[in-house]
């Protein structure tokens, strides 16, 4: 349900924007209220708290003819609006020295739109008692599956986001929800300790629990198997990326480089590659809160990833407008190997003279908006996974994102897979390596993609930083890819 609190502040925000609009040539306000719970059930502890996404606050943005200024605050009331207006004007004023340095940005577009959007959580809402019972059963199932598992932790988090955006010509409000879950198993044999992770996410608590329920046996077995994992012999190998690693490549290796605030700052090498080949012709890539993944119309994946409104059935980042008040897009970034578009927030688009793509996001209203990814994925191809595995003479299939870091100017890859399974002569040998660091030059990796599976999965339970801060929820994924890469 849309936040009653934001409803109660709507007219005051409108009044504030009107007042600021008399002083500045552009003024807008964003209010955000996120509620929800986080439940942790582990072998040794149970805990309940508000979701980590919890936030409630406001930010106004004004334009003075050369640059943008913002003021973040916790509340607005009839008694405080006058003081708030004075604080905003005082705190955002610049010394003449600083005012001379402005970047000369263009004013934001403010096309008229008044609209209310809603995407409530599907299925039954479970209370804390039921969640703890379900998660305790899942925890116990992992323990029961392996005597070597010494610790299990289950975390489920659900949240509902309400947001309002008001400018001179726009009055938008939205409400949407999401549910994430992680399962962690730690196995021990003698002094060797290893951990394995499983994730589940959807717009339904029941569905999320059900997905995790289907993964508990594999989670326990993986943690146990990883006890025998070895360090990989560094070298260049044929690889097959599972959808999690495909998503890691889409997001970290390439996606950050097409965030167009990086173009403004001359930080992205990709700005020199617009409308040029950056990947194998087999590669198509998308991003957007309204992403639609193209595939053969007959493909089951094609149907599975859409709902009646044309959105993905379970878009992790399912907002209808971004934190700049721009409607969600589906942006095709790579088409048949050619870089055809970047993604952008409103201010970057104004500076570049391009269309904003609905990718302006803030960690919370006390933070600046940047160009941020949403649901980022490669599109499926036509190859069968078994044919891809059979084609590998000696290489590894890589699974489960451990971590990754962008390098948009230099396009160096820093992606770490939690583990890999060795393939020799087209068959798995049973040998595991962990962890696996992928490195090299991004276009070399993307150009080396020689097979793209028709199986496809998007994983909606991650978070992404800009540099080393500004964390926002994201999802990524795609098909299995066959490529060649340096592993260590």
């Amino acid at each position, binding site marked *: 349900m849309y936040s009653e609190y934001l409803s109660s502040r709507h007219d005051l925000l409108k009044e504030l924007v009107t007042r600021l609009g008399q002083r500045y040539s552009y003024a807008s306000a964003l209010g955000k209220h996120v509620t929800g719970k986080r439940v942790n059930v582990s072998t040794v*502890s*149970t*805990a*309940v*708290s*508000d979701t980590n996404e*919890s936030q*409630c606050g406001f930010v106004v943005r004004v334009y003075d003819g050369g*640059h943008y*200024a*913002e*003021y973040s*605050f*916790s*509340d607005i*009331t009839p008694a405080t609006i006058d003081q708030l207006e004075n604080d905003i004007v005082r*705190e*955002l004023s610049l*010394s003449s*020295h*600083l005012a001379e*340095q*402005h*970047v000369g940005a263009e004013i934001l577009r403010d096309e008229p739109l008044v609209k209310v959007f809603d995407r409530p959580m599907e299925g039954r809402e479970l209370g804390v*008692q039921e969640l*703890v019972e379900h998660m305790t059963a899942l925890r116990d199932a992992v323990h029961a599956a392996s005597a070597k598992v*010494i610790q299990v932790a289950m975390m489920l988090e659900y949240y509902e986001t309400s947001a309002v955006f008001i400018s001179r010509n726009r009055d938008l409000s939205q409400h949407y929800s999401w549910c994430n879950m992680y399962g962690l198993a*730690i196995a*021990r044999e003698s*002094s*060797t*300790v290893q*951990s394995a992770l499983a994730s589940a996410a959807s717009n339904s608590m029941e569905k999320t629990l059900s997905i995790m329920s289907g993964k508990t046996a594999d989670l326990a077995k993986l943690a146990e198997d990883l006890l025998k994992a070895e360090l990989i012999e*560094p070298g260049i190998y044929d690889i097959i990326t599972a959808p999690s690693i495909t998503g890691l490549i889409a997001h970290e290796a390439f996606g950050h480089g097409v965030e167009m605030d990086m173009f*403004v*700052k*001359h*930080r992205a*090498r990709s700005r020199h590659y617009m409308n040029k080949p950056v990947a194998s012709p087999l590669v198509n890539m998308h991003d957007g809160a309204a992403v639609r993944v193209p595939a053969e119309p007959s493909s089951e994946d094609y149907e599975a990833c859409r709902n009646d409104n044309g959105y993905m059935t379970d878009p992790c980042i399912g907002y209808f407008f971004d934190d700049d008040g721009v409607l969600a897009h589906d942006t095709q970034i790579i088409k048949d190997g050619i870089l055809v578009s970047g993604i952008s927030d409103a201010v970057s688009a104004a500076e570049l003279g391009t269309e904003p793509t609905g990718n302006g996001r803030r960690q919370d209203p*006390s933070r*600046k908006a940047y160009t941020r990814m949403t649901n980022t994925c490669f599109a499926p191809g036509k190859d069968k996974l078994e044919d891809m595995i059979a084609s590998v003479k000696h290489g590894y299939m890589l699974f489960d994102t*451990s*971590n990754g*870091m962008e*390098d948009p*100017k*230099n396009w*160096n*890859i*820093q992606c*770490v897979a939690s583990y890999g399974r060795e393939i020799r002569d087209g068959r798995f040998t049973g040998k595991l390596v*962990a*962890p696996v*660091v992928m*490195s090299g030059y991004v276009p070399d990796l993307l150009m080396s993609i020689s097979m793209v599976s028709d199986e496809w999965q998007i994983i909606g339970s991650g978070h992404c930083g800009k*540099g*080393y*801060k500004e964390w926002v929820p994201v999802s990524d994924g795609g098909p299995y890819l066959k490529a060649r890469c*340096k592993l*260590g």
Partner: protein
Amino acid sequence: MIERIQAILNGIPEVSAWKLTVSEKQSSQLFYVGKKLETNRASDTTDYVLTIYVDKDGSAKTRGSATFTVYAFMTDEELRGKIRDNVYAAGFAMNPWYDIPGPEDTVLPESASNIKDIGLKEAAEIVSDAVFKADAYADGSLSATEIFIDKTLLHIYNSKGVDLQSVSYGASIELIPSWEKDGEEVEVYQMLRFESIDPDEITRLTDEQLQIAAARFTAKPLSEVVDTAKPLKVILQDKEAGHVFGYFADDLDYSAKYQKANKFEPGDAVQGDNITGTPLTLRMVPYVKNAFNSAFFDSDGVILKETVLVQDGVAVNRKGSYRFGYYLGEKAPAGNLPILVVEPGTKSFREMAAEPYLRCQVFSGIQVEPNSGYFGGEVRLGYYFDGEKEIPVTGFSISGNMNVSRGTMVYSSETVTTNAYHGPKYLEIPDMKLA
């Protein structure tokens, strides 16, 4: 607001104990594209986070808890309703009973930051001028700079009488220095953090980052300089050295022991029985000058005191949260201490350079995996020393395992202070794998 919350809590008998954390944050921020100001920001926000504890008496006494945010806009009725909802939720999150910390007689030092006297907006402008004073190269410049000047008033109360307050100031500067020539360009990333503002030091460190960008520009792929198939002596430095020592501190956390995920017990030789490198002496402390993460109390309200975890290679103590310390029977749990301090070694960097090495200066992010012992990552700028000179190198990753390297690492006599670490500036590790 605080009195209102306390009064409502006192009227709900099911609440056995509580903790209230209030954070009042003010910030002045400048965001630059090149040398041009794109956005200036200010913020003034207050957050209230409440933890309530609910006890149940059964065959064994248990305690459940719930942590949640409350807002100043809530009416008394709404506050009472939210607390009652969380009392209900806490009833399903029962754990073995544990205590919460009580008050201690102590006087906490006041912030020594000069930002207090300068003011946030004015400090932001001083920092801006200091940063751009270094941006004076023909081929190098700052692509983007973000400046954050923050004041945080943190107040922790609990039902046992803890009433702690700190006012902290900080300057954070995100720098993206780049180097460009003949159509080729590279960049590096650095976040500098200071409690106080010293314009000359900010200019010096900004210049240092521009020099690092220049070095990355000239760097060759490591594989062109050395045979990467052979293991090599690697030197880690600065905060990455601190990350590696974190492996020992994490293992000696109360929670690792309680979860039976720890490898070391007090009395154990954490570096193995055959130490060929430097014996480790590691302490956790609340405060080191210029260590940005310093704090005199932790989030539970424990007054923090220096705790020696490892002495001459032998584990002697653990540290960690009050709750898990309580579970382990600690009379005075050490708390979550923020700064890791390691005694330096006796070998100087010059002495380390007696033979070829690979010094890693800029990582995209080093990973130290507590369970498997794996450590490594992608290096964006390193220096290969061939016996005569350092050659800038890039495009490689290193990997190793603490189970192998823990007793062979050699610590430098030179020291460094980073946000959360004070100790040897250089850490020499033999026979690391390269890729």
